């Protein structure tokens, strides 16, 4: 993958030109520290209709106050992406209206992902008092004459005399440790300020000091409900970079395992949505089926939730003899059980009243926010990576991509439940004719990627999961970036949740189905 650099002067014009040419999907924004070549950022753009993509980059040599023009007014998701790059690299984006640290605390010293960052304990000890929430948005805008942009503190985030409530880090319905900072008017939500970072583990910094086989376990712990797909993306990226051939048997096994993991994740999405809306019985029925998948996974891979199954060049161990029979048995049983979910919860009049027309995300917003996966397909945008850039066996298997145009919470759940049936269809086409062959190709003990930049993307359970590696030829990556499937959903949530009720806020959060460790990495 080659990247063409643009000079900083005419960066915004070329970006606006790309946008007018139809590049309306900003796939990824990767902050980079090329040490003596300065700090910069790589933008991966894609045309949502022709699926043609370009990689563009820009850099600045100044290391004390690096400044790049912001594109958050062109693509709405760039607002959060740029806050992340500011958090990790200290690059200030001029024209961004709310540039605060996204993950780390405001009193954090230094920018972690820079190569010259010193991670000593004294500099950043474990501070035991919660930090007061900042009051002002910080905006960098260039006054006409001066060269450097100044920090202008303008809009107040949450006013003191509003009824400010923390749906805080520890809350039963935030699917993890996400912090909604709301100002309420009765039951109406006036203003939402989503703060994440409570589960930021610095995985990308750790990856820069680990060999490639040691990076593989991190992908399972990013979005643990699409563990197989994440690992598939990383293995595919490394295998393409080193041209390691992978046998057909492995492609079959990997596709089947990806689809099983997708069903498992959609079942959990249905269960958590039922629990968040008060139907605990719906949650228990969803988990009853999910346990059957976890049994199949455990027999073959050894792990229920975190499987560690794919390795570079194949899979850890061959599938057990009874695997095909168990999977077919499960698929038939699931087709009957799914009708039960419709009767109990989905066609229930209370659920329909609480979810139809709630949290509507239009198609343009979905694309501009880059909300891929079930959320994007529920708003009418055909963004399935298995169709856009087919990989593994997806090119040879015929399956329907489910796209609805409702865009509200109800449609998002319907898309997931129908995708379960689609995935069962894929598995049934593959399960009977797994070819013979070795399950792992021999690889050298020390794996060194050649010089250059490589990327691969895969359809995770809740969106497009991408891996970008910049390698300088040694056994550790120079820079490794995972595309978070959840961060665009959070950006979309920021917009949808304004003006809804508290109960709707929980429903929207459940229907967007984001996984927080995948957002915070």
């Amino acid at each position, binding site marked *: 993958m080659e990247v063409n650099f643009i000079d900083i002067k005419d960066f915004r014009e070329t970006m606006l030109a790309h946008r007018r040419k139809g590049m309306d999907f900003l796939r990824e924004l990767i902050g980079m520290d090329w040490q003596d070549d300065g700090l910069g950022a790589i933008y991966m753009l894609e045309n949502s209709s022709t699926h043609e993509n370009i990689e563009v980059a820009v850099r600045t040599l100044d290391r004390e106050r690096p400044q790049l023009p912001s594109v958050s007014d062109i693509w709405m998701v760039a607002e959060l992406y740029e806050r992340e790059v500011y958090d990790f690299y200290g690059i200030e984006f001029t024209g961004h209206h709310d540039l605060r640290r996204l993950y780390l605390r405001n009193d954090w010293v230094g920018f972690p992902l820079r190569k010259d960052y010193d991670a000593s304990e004294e500099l950043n000890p474990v501070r*035991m008092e919660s930090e007061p929430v900042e009051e002002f948005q910080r905006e960098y805008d260039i006054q006409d004459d001066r060269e450097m942009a100044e920090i202008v503190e303008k*809009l107040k985030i949450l006013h003191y005399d509003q009824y400010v409530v923390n749906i805080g880090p520890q809350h039963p319905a935030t699917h993890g440790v996400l912090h909604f900072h709301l100002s309420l008017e009765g039951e109406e939500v006036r203003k939402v300020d989503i703060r994440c970072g409570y589960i930021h583990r610095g995985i990308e910094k750790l990856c820069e000091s680990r060999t490639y086989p040691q990076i593989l376990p991190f992908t399972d712990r990013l979005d643990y409900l699409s563990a197989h797909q994440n690992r598939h993306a990383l293995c595919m990226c490394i295998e393409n970079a080193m041209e390691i051939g992978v046998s057909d048997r492995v492609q079959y096994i990997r596709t089947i395992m990806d689809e099983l993991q997708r069903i498992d994740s959609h079942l959990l999405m249905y269960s958590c949505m039922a629990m968040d809306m008060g139907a605990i019985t719906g949650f228990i029925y969803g988990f009853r089926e999910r*346990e059957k998948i976890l049994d199949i996974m455990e027999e073959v891979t050894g792990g229920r*939730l975190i499987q560690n199954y794919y390795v570079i060049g194949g899979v850890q161990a061959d599938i057990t003899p009874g695997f095909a029979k168990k999977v077919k048995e499960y698929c038939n049983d699931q087709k009957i059980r799914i009708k039960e979910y419709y009767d109990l919860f989905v066609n229930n009049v209370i659920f329909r009243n609480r979810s139809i027309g709630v949290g509507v995300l239009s198609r343009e917003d979905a694309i501009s926010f880059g909300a891929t996966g079930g959320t994007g397909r529920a708003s009418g945008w055909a963004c399935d990576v298995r169709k856009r850039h087919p990989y593994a066996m997806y090119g040879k298997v015929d399956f329907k991509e489910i796209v609805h145009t409702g865009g509200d919470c109800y449609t998002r759940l319907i898309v997931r439940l129908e995708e379960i049936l689609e995935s069962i269809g894929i598995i049934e086409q593959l399960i009977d004719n797994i070819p013979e062959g070795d399950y792992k190709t021999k690889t050298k003990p020390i794996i060194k990627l050649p010089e250059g930049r490589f990327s691969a993307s895969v359809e995770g359970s809740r969106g497009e999961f991408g891996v970008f590696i910049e390698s300088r030829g040694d056994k550790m990556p120079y820079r490794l970036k995972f595309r978070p499937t959840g961060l665009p959903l959070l950006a979309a949530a920021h917009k949808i949740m304004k003006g809804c009720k508290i109960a709707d806020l929980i429903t929207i959060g459940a229907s967007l189905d984001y996984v927080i460790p995948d957002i915070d990495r």
Partner: protein
Amino acid sequence: MEMKKPAIKSIPYEEFKDNETLESLLAEVNKERTNVLIGNLDDLINWGRSNSLWSLTFATSCCGIEFMAVGAARYDFARFGFEVTRNSPRQADLIMCAGTITHKMAPVLKRLYDQMAEPKYVVAVGGCAISGGPFKGSYHVLNGIDKIIPVDVYVPGCPPRPEAMLYGMMQLQRKVKAEKFLGGKNIHRKRSDAPKDPIIVTNVPAGDENKNEK
């Protein structure tokens, strides 16, 4: 009256791990002489407390999904009496810390622990809560929650199986049964560590009117 070895239904005492720490706890409890009445009352209260440990729904990452699986139909920790997972720290007896605790999450966990009503317990579930697990070298991860709050039981695994979590809960039940409640566990510890002035999360500026806000 001697406090006898805590017994758990259908698992013999020898097959449990780490009995030495439990025996040292028992020895320390049996040092003072208690009369029969208080001893029996103690046993009764400990029997009650150990069979109804209500956990706080506290899950930060992957172990949280296994925590939900333990609550679901197949493993069903309602059989042990832990069924009611309370969301408010006031009514919870124990924090099952399932998941990674980062620098930003550490004050939140400490505050939750302070808000819980005595007698309270902490179970560290999974490698991340015990020692930082896969992210031990990271700049933002706390290497084990025993650095900020006292931990009673460690459940290793990444993530531990639901049965391993149930085994950890049974270990906690044994520890609860081996405690002296009257005159021991229920003496209100002088709240030295409790913060004097309450931690204010939104520092409220004294009445400045920012007019440009809508």
